[in-house]
């Protein structure tokens, strides 16, 4: 459903083919059959995850092929010009977009094993593997892919439109780290940058990370939120940084936030009856779900 400017519907070109329908079914099975040599028909198809960015889509599926083997496939469609959906060996450069699902073809994606998470930016795609490694494909114009291949032991990833974030619990004490690379024109990297070049470096949280355990990383278009659980007083806290033109970082102003500030609980209290339990970040918007203790 929706716009098809970049082939994002995944059903091919619909211009001039009758009136637009309210919804369309994307042919994943057909795309796998084509990729697996033509005549193979899938017995069952299980979609593990559907991940979307502003202009492209990636799905992770487990398909039961006719010869009995179940295999994982990563397919994508939509904008492809910057290599965010891989490149097929027949072409030297990817097309403007793929309007039907294609296997995401990239040496890096193939060799690192099972994928556990996928995150999409404006012109890049990041993958997290069961091994704790990360890889990224697509545009590196803002340094959003820099250094990703050096990461180990990563537990979660997220992408803003022009940045990539990787979260890790570094040791048994639960000390966590969020590493960021990419555009920093609105403070999205969450640190005071010393060099002009973007590098993959930790976000500078103003607290000792032994006391805070990262529960969730939520990336918006150009800002990031983190939900933490504190081990010292049991409180749940939401911290955020980045673009703030729409007041989405709850600072009371629209100044961008270069290093993390706490959004919840509000400044005046440390523990609050409304306890943050989940966070989401959208286009200049932030969402915090809270629960109230019924005592």
């Amino acid at each position, binding site marked *: 459903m929706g*716009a098809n*400017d*970049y082939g994002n519907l995944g059903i091919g070109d619909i211009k001039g083919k009758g009136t637009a329908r309210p919804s369309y079914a994307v042919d994943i099975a057909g795309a796998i059959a084509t990729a697996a040599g033509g005549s193979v028909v899938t017995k069952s198809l299980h979609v593990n995850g559907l991940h979307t960015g*502003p*202009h492209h889509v990636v799905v992770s599926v487990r398909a039961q092929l006719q010869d009995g083997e179940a295999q994982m496939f990563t397919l994508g469609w939509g*904008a492809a*010009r910057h290599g965010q959906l891989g490149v097929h060996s027949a072409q030297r450069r990817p097309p*403007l977009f793929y309007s039907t699902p294609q296997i995401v073809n990239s040496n890096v994606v193939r060799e690192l094993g099972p994928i556990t998470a996928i995150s999409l930016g*404006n*012109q890049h795609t990041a993958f997290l593997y069961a091994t704790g490694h990360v890889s990224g494909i697509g545009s590196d114009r803002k340094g959003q892919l820099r250094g990703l291949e050096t990461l180990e032991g990563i537990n979660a990833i997220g992408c803003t*439109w*022009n940045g990539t974030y990787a979260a890790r619990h570094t040791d048994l004490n639960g000390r966590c780290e969020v590493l960021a690379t990419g555009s920093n*024109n609105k403070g999205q990297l969450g640190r005071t940058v010393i060099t002009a070049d973007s590098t993959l470096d930790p976000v500078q949280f103003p607290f000792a990370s032994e006391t805070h355990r990262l529960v969730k990383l939520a990336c*918006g*278009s*150009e800002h990031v939120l983190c939900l933490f659980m504190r081990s010292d007083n049991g409180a749940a806290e939401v911290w955020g940084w980045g*673009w703030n*033109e*729409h007041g989405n970082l709850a600072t009371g102003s629209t100044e961008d936030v270069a290093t993390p500030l706490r959004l919840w609980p509000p400044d005046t209290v440390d523990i609050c009856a409304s306890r943050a339990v989940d966070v989401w970040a*959208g*286009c*200049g*918007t932030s969402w915090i779900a809270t629960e109230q203790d019924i005592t």
Partner: protein
Amino acid sequence: MGAYYDEVEIEDMAWDEQKRVYHYPCPCGDRFEISRKQLANYEDIATCPSCSLVIRVVYDPLDYEDEPDDEAAASDAESDESEGESDLDNFEDALEHLTISDEQPRAVPVEA
């Protein structure tokens, strides 16, 4: 004005037929828009109606020189082409003969 939020190539932008603008998403949820007329005038800043961000559009100005009205421009271009070719034939003949005559130029069918 401040720095651009980004520089976007025209190939990455989509064309809205109804509003007749090229557009690209803005991180606030609205979109940056720029018309062909602006591009023809060498204006390369696309603005977002909902926030202060702007982008610079990277494109070849020569591709957009002949706007403003797409339909009128297209039909003019076609009739110009056919007249041009017959004129060329007659021009050669005129040079060879070096006479001024009242002969009307004949339209010569040309294979496409």
